């Protein structure tokens, strides 16, 4: 008997896969909406911890999907979720890559690329906003978010150093 939670996870992420225009960062609000508000799989604090762990590990940021799956249904949940998240979009990418050369200069391709860009900006900005609201509950926390934002925009410092600094500040009880 298959754990019904695994089927539920698979269905959620299979649908999210083709909606994730702009990558995993763009669907954080939708994942939060489904995992916390609709399915009640986890609390705000859990979601924010899964996000932090996915950022602290090496690898693509889609890993947050595997952590949500893990929180809901263990290792099997993690594997089902990440496979469901990457499956449909990978099949689509494979098929489009085959036909890509024929569409190289097609005006419709240019229009799709240029049209999706601002939508992606809005989606990722929403992710930052939802994460900040989920994560930050004190002025020092907002100051940490604001500082990394400023540093990332104005310097070429590697993001990993900023995350390490944030972790140390957190462990010392500052954030």
């Amino acid at each position, binding site marked *: 008997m298959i754990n019904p939670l695994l089927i539920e996870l698979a269905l959620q992420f299979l649908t999210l896969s083709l909606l994730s225009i702009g990558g995993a960062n763009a669907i954080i609000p939708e994942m939060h909406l489904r995992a916390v508000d609709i399915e009640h799989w986890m609390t705000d604090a859990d979601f924010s*911890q899964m996000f932090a762990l996915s950022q602290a590990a090496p690898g693509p940021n889609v890993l947050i999907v595997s952590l949500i799956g893990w929180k809901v249904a263990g290792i099997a949940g993690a594997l089902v979720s990440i496979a469901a998240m*990457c499956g449909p979009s990978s099949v689509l990418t494979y098929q489009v890559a085959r036909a890509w050369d024929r569409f190289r200069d097609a005006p419709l391709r240019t229009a799709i690329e240029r*049209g999706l860009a601002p*939508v992606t900006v809005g989606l990722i*900005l929403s992710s930052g906003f939802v994460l900040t609201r989920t994560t930050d509950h004190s002025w020092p926390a907002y100051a*940490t978010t604001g500082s990394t934002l400023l540093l990332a925009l104005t310097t070429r410092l590697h993001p990993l150093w900023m995350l390490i600094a*944030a972790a140390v500040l*957190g462990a010392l009880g500052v954030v």
Partner: protein
Amino acid sequence: MRVTTGDLFWGFLKVGVSGFGGVLPFAHRSIVEHNRWLTEPEFTEALSLAQFLPGPNIVNLSVIIGRRFQGPIGAAAATLGLMLMPLAIVLLLAMLFAQFAHVEAVRNACAGVSAGASGLVLSIALKMARPMRRLPLQLGIAATTFAAIALLRVPLPWALGVLAPLSIGIAWWSNR
């Protein structure tokens, strides 16, 4: 250039484990500079395709590059190589975290990372918005998307179903 299924698997495995704080720079270094599987323009074109299609960008990139050299098997090998180690590491990290979640300093460090990483996500959006700063229609679409998703919490399928065709329509019409 001949690239075997094994090359793809091991090449992307290395990219996966070195990718702290974003895999893309490491993928670029490995694929263009180190292994020379693709030239700079070829990489840029593959990346732009990977970014505008739905799905994790770097996973899409591994599918495109794997397919180019070894078809479906190559795509699978590259993607598996990319995800295998990061997946194992992040799950290990999550299990460790669950063991030590009662320690206040560990929880607080995690909250610190979360706060910092939220700022990084915001910075990505603002960097992407820079080329649009003189294009009021595009900024309007970005702002409407933000209002729908972040403020009104409209479910993503509805928001995308309306805004994506609208925005593509505007781009099509303004291009003629």
